[in-house]
């Protein structure tokens, strides 16, 4: 039975015809459309307004064949205005992103570059440590030094070498020297403060031993505990305890067999209400939600346009699906539009047949940069080129928006415009698992065709109940204003933390609303020293270097939480100030005004 008909009037100079499409029963309910340049509708609602995109002149080029002669003059005038605007404003930023004034909400997100000497010294540092790495490898090969890491046996040395590639070299010679800053064992719950086990190493981090002491009350700036639901308050967790008594702890089956509990149905109903969509489905693991559901939605003959900085789960899901993947520059609408246009015009690589589906995969908040997707513009593009949108709100659900509904609420966008809304419960809800939400046909299709639903164990009852109670708290359904208080507290904390750090002179990436704050450290030795100094001051931070980030952009990533009090944040900021001076980390060359509300855009000049 066909679910949808599309009446697409085709405007072209040659002919006018209407083409109908309907769903085929054995395909996904994201309706495959034959997309050609002819039937890209000149629907004025879908064209981004000229001030939102500096590629406006190309929009008009795209419509040239379909313009009536009487509209040519209007088109020409608008084109000139766009070009003028572009010339006047376009030179102020050279970081590849258009300065959109589309909405007051979408603030300017600069990715400030550090001075040139920082890049030079970063490479210098890496170079010197690499040279010493070669020296140590030589000593190990000759036999002057014992090799503490995995090595091939004597008999295997004639075969293809296993440990010669760069990744192993890096692990042996760079990571092992400084690995006391990662995998620190925690012995309390990861709330706003936590306890660490003290460990020391006698042989330069090859082995560790515990001294037996615990470091108490270390401020936790690394956990994704945005709304503070990682707590063990007995009152809040009463319902969870009750459900454990009722349902047990394990499910021991998949959703499709006998693992579909009534609590799962309740959760899915609640998630759908929360997001304002027709239906939702939940899975036991967030990573598996992405990697197992994208293959169910797209396949060979489809095109995936994925952002440069997408998470590994999205990349893995895209690769598993077998679709063609093209990557566009991070948050860059011009790049995305160019790719969409090229895809629609040229079709599949050799045969030039039209793509079955085009899926744009973006994230709400990117976890390494703290930047927010430009959602209204992506939706406008998707409508214009008839693509589908997959939005991964792992970090943004519950953390941004007036009532915590995520980036759709932040930008005031209709949730029906996003075809597939995905998110995880790990970050803001203090549980584990993920969801996919959207139209009922989509979710019903996924219930039968998703690998995660068919083969993965269902979510366990305590986790499910934790999500239910957290979501009810946020929505206010438990009768208290605790949820709203937490959301407001998080927004306030995030703004305060970011503005204070910028004022101090650190280079921060990302949008002003996002609770993820990456502070750029650049040099490898400074990254290590920073982590150690902060721990000495009883603050736990997460530092990230290569290979998770580009080699010259190592950073410390702070995750602000609603459970952090102003005093804790002030303590962290004072220590940051001290450590920033001690290690010379304040690279920002921006002229910062102490009252950020006066001007919408900070004016600064970047040295390239």
């Amino acid at each position, binding site marked *: 039975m066909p679910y949808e008909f599309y009446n697409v009037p085709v405007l072209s100079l040659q002919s006018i015809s209407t083409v109908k499409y309907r769903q085929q029963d054995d395909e996904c309910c994201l309706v495959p459309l034959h997309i050609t340049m002819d039937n890209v509708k000149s629907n004025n609602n879908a064209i981004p307004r000229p001030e939102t995109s500096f590629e406006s002149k190309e929009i008009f080029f795209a419509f040239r064949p379909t313009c009536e002669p009487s509209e040519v003059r209007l088109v020409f005038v608008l084109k000139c205005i766009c070009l003028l605007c572009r010339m006047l404003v376009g030179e102020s930023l050279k970081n590849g992103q258009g300065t959109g004034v589309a909405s007051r909400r979408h603030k300017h997100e600069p990715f400030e570059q550090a*001075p*040139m*000497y920082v890049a*030079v*010294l970063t490479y*210098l*540092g*890496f170079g*010197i*440590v690499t040279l*010493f790495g070669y*020296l140590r490898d030589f000593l190990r090969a000759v036999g002057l030094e014992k090799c503490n890491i995995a090595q091939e046996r004597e008999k295997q040395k004639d075969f293809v070498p296993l440990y010669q590639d760069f990744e192993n070299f890096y692990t042996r010679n*760079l990571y092992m*020297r*400084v690995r006391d800053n990662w995998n620190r064992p925690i012995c309390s719950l990861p709330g706003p403060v936590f306890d660490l086990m003290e460990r020391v190493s006698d042989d*330069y981090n090859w082995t560790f031993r515990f001294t037996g002491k615990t470091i108490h009350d270390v401020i936790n700036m690394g956990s994704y505990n945005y709304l503070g639901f990682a707590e063990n308050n007995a009152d809040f967790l009463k319902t969870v305890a009750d459900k454990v008594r009722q349902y047990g702890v394990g499910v021991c089956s998949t959703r499709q067999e006998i693992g579909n509990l009534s609590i799962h149905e309740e959760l899915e109903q609640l998630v759908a209400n929360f997001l304002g969509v027709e239906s939702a489905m939940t899975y036991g693991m967030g990573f598996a939600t992405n990697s197992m559901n994208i293959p169910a939605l797209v396949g060979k003959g489809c095109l995936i346009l994925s952002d440069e900085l997408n998470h590994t789960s999205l990349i893995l899901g895209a690769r598993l699906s077998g679709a063609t993947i093209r990557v566009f520059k991070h948050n860059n609408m011009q790049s995305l539009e160019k790719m969409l246009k090229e895809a629609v015009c040229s079709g599949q690589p050799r045969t030039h047949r039209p793509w079955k589906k085009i899926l744009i995969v973006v994230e709400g908040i990117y976890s390494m940069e703290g930047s927010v997707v430009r959602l209204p513009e992506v939706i406008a593009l998707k409508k214009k080129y008839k693509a589908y949108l997959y939005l991964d709100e792992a970090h943004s659900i519950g953390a941004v928006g007036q009532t915590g509904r995520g980036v759709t609420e932040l930008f005031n966008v209709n949730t029906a415009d996003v075809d597939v809304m995905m998110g995880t419960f790990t970050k803001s809800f203090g549980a584990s698992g993920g969801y996919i939400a959207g139209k009922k046909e989509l979710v019903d299709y996924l219930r039968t065709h998703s690998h995660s639903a068919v083969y993965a164990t269902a979510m366990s009852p305590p986790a499910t109940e934790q999500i239910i109670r957290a979501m009810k708290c946020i929505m206010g359904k438990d009768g208290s204003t605790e949820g709203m208080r937490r959301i407001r507290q998080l927004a306030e904390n995030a703004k305060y933390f970011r503005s*204070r750090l910028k*004022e101090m*002179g650190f280079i921060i990436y990302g949008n002003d609303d996002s609770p993820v704050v990456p502070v750029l450290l650049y*040099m*490898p*030795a*400074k990254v*290590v*020293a920073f982590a150690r100094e902060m721990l000495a001051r009883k603050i736990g931070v997460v530092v990230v270097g290569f290979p998770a980030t580009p080699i010259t952009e190592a950073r410390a990533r702070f995750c602000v939480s609603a459970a952090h009090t102003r005093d804790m944040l002030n303590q962290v900021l004072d220590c940051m100030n001290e450590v920033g*001076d*001690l*290690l*010379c980390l*304040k*690279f*920002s*060359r*921006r*002229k*910062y005004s*102490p*009252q950020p509300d006066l001007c919408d855009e900070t004016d600064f000049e970047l*040295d390239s």
Partner: protein
Amino acid sequence: MAGTEVRPSQRLPPCLLCKDCFLFLCVNKHRPMHRSSRTLHLRDLRARMNFKNLREYLAWLYYQYLLITGIYVLEPWEKSIFNSILFSAIAMVVYTSYVFVPIHVRLALEFFLGIFGGQLESTMALMT
């Protein structure tokens, strides 16, 4: 407390910033109107860091050297190797310049004076 403290960089007149700065790779184009722009200079940091004596300041400079070159992550014997190599390289540069630079300068001066001196003589000869 947050925005009210005056940063020491605002007290320093801008023209001194590049003159006695120790950071030899200071590549910021100096713009006099951006008086309060946050350029990194060791003089500002010294003012903010409150060193009690010279020894502490030198220790901090050594720490910076360790961080910038990446030596900080290496084991002590590797640090010693690198330091000795670097020190001997610098010592050789200093020795070579001490021995040879005066000789080269003298030769260069003689060469150029010879050219201009020769020009003067030939013009004098033409005039007389």
